[in-house]
């Protein structure tokens, strides 16, 4: 039985994700997907939201794709035949994506304070050794770069950041740690991120932020969102302690 997958000349590809979701792929070149797609994905998300398509429950962006979650029951109740649900929804999404965006969201530039004190940077030596540079240079290079949030996932509020200077690429640890403290700034391969909550993980921990990146009592609960530009600002241990008191 063939997989229903629709593709138009604008190179948007829509594929089912089970019977209650679709994956909308907005970027053709998967290999570059991590770097270039944030704008396209945000634009596409905005257009799908503005179209207010009946039956769509929520959207979940990730790198070059958007997961569109829907309620087939609602679509069928609105009069669409069960056999035509996915096709109807795909068509509606293609139509929405061909529209001009009415409102464009601003790109935010967020500064994230980070303390690279040795107690918070258990893997900094490892990163320094792999890059064949002193730890002070690693921190300088890390903070000089401008990152982009490509995806929020893995745990609530966890930002996958692209833009890591190539020389700081460090493979994941062979044995993941059972608990990485909340706020930990880490490098995994050519990506970097911050653990909002304590969790197991295999990335290389190089620092810690006093910022609370996830708070379920806030709206929105995640401090960062896809498309945000991020810079890290090195702070002293004193400043870190003052921020968290």
């Amino acid at each position, binding site marked *: 039985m063939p997989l229903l997958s629709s593709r138009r000349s604008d190179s948007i590809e829509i594929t089912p994700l*089970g019977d209650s979701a679709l994956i909308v792929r907005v970027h053709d070149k998967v290999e570059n997907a991590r770097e270039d797609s944030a704008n396209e994905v945000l634009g596409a998300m905005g257009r799908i939201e503005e179209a207010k398509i009946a039956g769509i429950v929520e959207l979940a962006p990730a790198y070059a794709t958007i997961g569109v*979650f829907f309620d087939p029951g609602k679509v069928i109740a609105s009069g669409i035949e069960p056999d035509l649900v996915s096709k109807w929804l795909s068509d509606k999404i293609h139509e929405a994506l061909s529209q001009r965006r009415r409102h464009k969201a601003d790109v935010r530039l967020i500064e994230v304070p980070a303390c690279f004190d040795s107690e918070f940077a258990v893997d900094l030596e490892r990163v320094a050794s792999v890059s064949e540079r002193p730890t002070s240079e690693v921190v300088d290079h890390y903070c000089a770069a401008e990152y982009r949030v490509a*995806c929020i996932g893995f745990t609530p509020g966890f930002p996958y950041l692209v833009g890591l200077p190539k020389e700081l690429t460090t493979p994941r640890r062979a044995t993941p740690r059972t608990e990485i403290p909340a706020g930990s700034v880490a490098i995994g391969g050519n990506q970097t991120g911050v653990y909002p909550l304590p969790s197991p993980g295999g990335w290389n921990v190089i620092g810690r932020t006093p910022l609370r990146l996830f708070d379920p009592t806030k709206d929105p609960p995640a401090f960062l969102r896809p498309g945000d530009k991020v810079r890290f600002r090195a702070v002293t241990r004193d400043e870190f302690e003052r921020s968290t008191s």
Partner: protein
Amino acid sequence: MTATIIRAGFLTTIQDLGRIGSRQFGVSVGGALDTHALRVANLLVGNDETAAGIEMTLGGSQLRFADERTVAWCGGGFDVRVPAGHAAMMSAGEELIFNQPKTGCRSWLAISGGIDVPLVLKSRSTDLRASFGGFVGRALRDGDELSLGKRRRSQTAATEKISSWSASHDWSSTAKAEPVLRVLRGADWDRFDASAHHALTSGAFIVSPDSNRMGARLEGPELRRNDDVDLVSEAVAPGTIQVPPNGQPIVLLGDCQTIGGYPKIAHVITVDLPVAAQLRAGDRVSFREVSLAQAHRLLADRERDFNCFKTGLSLRQ
């Protein structure tokens, strides 16, 4: 008034139909791993179908009711003096025990008035990994007292101790001795070779003890890929069957992460998620491919039947 958890059991949590609208923040949907079972149980006791209930795993749970309540439960083959799918009247001080199930592993108990815990990100479900929601963000423990919502007037007018009528057997008792999950091909189906396709749809897998609310890990024939391209993470859903490098599939369940980078070979259809929610270590599970159209027709039929059931109940209450 309250219900006291005298014995919590193996893993007991407050769940509703899940946390919708926060996937984009990396928040798992969670909720009852069989939302349909909870909806049915809620209707049986006169609650709104979205009310929070109690999910119990592998038994050992004992509850006591401080005041008169209607209760109902659906799910696995638990040994309970109130049969699955029936509404029952609990008097003030009465206790209810869920012993170890013979088949399946989870059940969902609804209590008239619903479990009264705060909404967090629009849901009363417990997010165990991130420790929020439900009963102060954790599994229930011996001695916990649950606040219950106000009973609706219609809920107090029952005449039988245990209702003679009930929800259908299919909806009330969802564990199968030899579970078969109907699946759709996933986006990465063609990344796997013919032997993998054959193994998935004709073979059988054993549920590993290393399974939990995030997913059921399966052991069986190795599902081999044609390529070794490093995939970029994208959204996944409960029911998604991922295949990590060791070739052993994982059926994702409600607490799964919002995105994943492992290839998605197939997806369990929504109407079979209740069967997936009962998978227990040692169970022998197999898969059968169906079409998207069939999956939607089955879902449409179930929702139509559910609406009839809802109407029928409202005439009684």
